[in-house]
């Protein structure tokens, strides 16, 4: 039996008396490249945070790889690039390498020594985003777009099976953006990594993703790619 990578059932979420999500359902299958669209404030980021267990919904349940989110343990299988990932303390004194290796915590076990194979892994993901020569730089001394690329690399380093992305290409130049989508397509098609991406980028929706979900008025419904343009 093929279990869903993500299963959100009957999710209802309110901020106070303000209902953001009203009894929504979503099944994400292995190999999906799913685009989540909707106007500002429609609840996309909120929904993603619920799927990641960062916010508890008032009603409904989330399953990751068939396991209830409260009991889920394999967090290394989950990648996440938050909206405005680059809005961190810019004077934080850590290098790119140190920031990326943070995502290897569970892999490395306790202690602070990083083994060779993990160093190679860090080099590999930095190479993917074209930032290898910035490994020893302080993260705060990079440009916004460069930082965004580091966060993409960071989400890849634990070799996740699904990556949740909240407007990952904001602040990235057109050329790098195309490179990013090429990479996502490669990860999706060749490595069978499932992707869930919030985006306002219609070009990406049209050309890259294979399913489109629209978030509007507290509901989430599957939409035909071509119909996205009408709203």
């Amino acid at each position, binding site marked *: 039996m093929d279990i869903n990578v993500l299963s959100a059932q009957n999710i209802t979420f309110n901020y106070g008396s303000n209902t953001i999500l009203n009894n929504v359902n979503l099944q994400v299958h292995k190999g999906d490249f799913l685009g989540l669209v909707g106007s500002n404030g429609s609840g996309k980021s909120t929904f993603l945070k619920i799927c*990641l*267990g*960062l916010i508890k919904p008032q009603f409904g349940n989330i399953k990751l790889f068939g396991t209830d989110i409260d009991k889920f*343990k*394999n*967090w*290394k299988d*989950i990648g*996440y690039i*938050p909206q405005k990932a680059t809005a*961190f*303390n810019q*004077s*934080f*004194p*850590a*290098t790119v390498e*140190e*920031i990326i*290796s*943070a*995502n*290897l*915590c*569970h892999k*490395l076990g*306790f*202690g*602070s020594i990083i083994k060779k194979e993990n160093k190679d892994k860090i080099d590999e993901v930095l190479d993917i985003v074209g930032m290898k*020569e910035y490994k*020893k*730089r*302080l993260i705060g001394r990079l440009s916004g777009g460069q930082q965004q690329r580091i966060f993409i690399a960071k989400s890849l380093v*634990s070799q996740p099976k699904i990556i949740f992305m909240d407007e990952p290409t904001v602040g990235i130049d057109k050329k790098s953006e195309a490179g990013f989508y090429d990479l996502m397509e490669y990860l999706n098609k060749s490595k069978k990594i499932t992707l869930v991406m919030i985006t306002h980028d219609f070009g990406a929706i049209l050309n890259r993703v294979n399913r489109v979900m629209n978030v509007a008025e507290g509901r989430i419904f599957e939409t035909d790619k071509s119909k996205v343009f009408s709203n």
Partner: protein
Amino acid sequence: MFEVLNYGFMQRAFMAGILVALICPLIGTFIVLRRLSMIGDTLSHASLAGIAAGMAGNFYPLWGALIFSIAAALGVERLRRSFSQYAELSISIVLSASIGLAVVLISLAKSFNADLMSYLFGSIIAVSMKDIHMISALSIIIILSVYIFYKEFLYISFDEEGAAISGIPVTALNIYFTVLTAMTIVVSMRIVGIMMVSSLLVVPVAASLQISTSFKNTMLLSVLFALFSVVSGLFTSYYLDLAPGGTIVLISVLLLIIIIIMKKIGSFSLSYR
């Protein structure tokens, strides 16, 4: 100059001082980066209440300090969840309660004496063998904990949400970290004094942040600065008969000022690739 090290009390003072210089920056680095600088003040005032309780109740004051500061640490963490958007508020609340409790207990113990003064301002001659045992045991726990949870604490300091999603038990580690902070206060106060513990948590880190090129580097440099401040501070306070805590802290502030000036002049920035 070094013959003073023949005195037993001076050996104990140096031993305690060096442990303090190792531990304060280890914990202090995370405290500064998480913008929790006030927590040192709060927990040290709680430990003052513990000292007074020990004096009033006739038990070893450092036990009182440890218990009270850990209780305050847990209180801060508990309140932080009620005021999640205002972390400082929970710290202020516990600070107020601690000062109130300390004052009441001091008046109960009728113990505003030389002993209490030594806890407030630090003392070279007052470090006993019993203190050394307590300080060493706590220091080992703190150093091991930072070694074991280094990456986790780093991640939490940088991005709590991200840390949680990568499977790190953030809440449990936050509580544990605050308890470690409480232990650090107790380790430090014999030498540095309750009034100045929090400065030693923060000032060497502030100095190292000026020139550091990585996280590890920040930690190591701040340990170096703290060691320099403590060792030179202990000598100075012995020969000039000054309170060690104030001397150590003044030296570390001086060091910070020198580094800031040298950085301004531009002759002193470690290069990075």
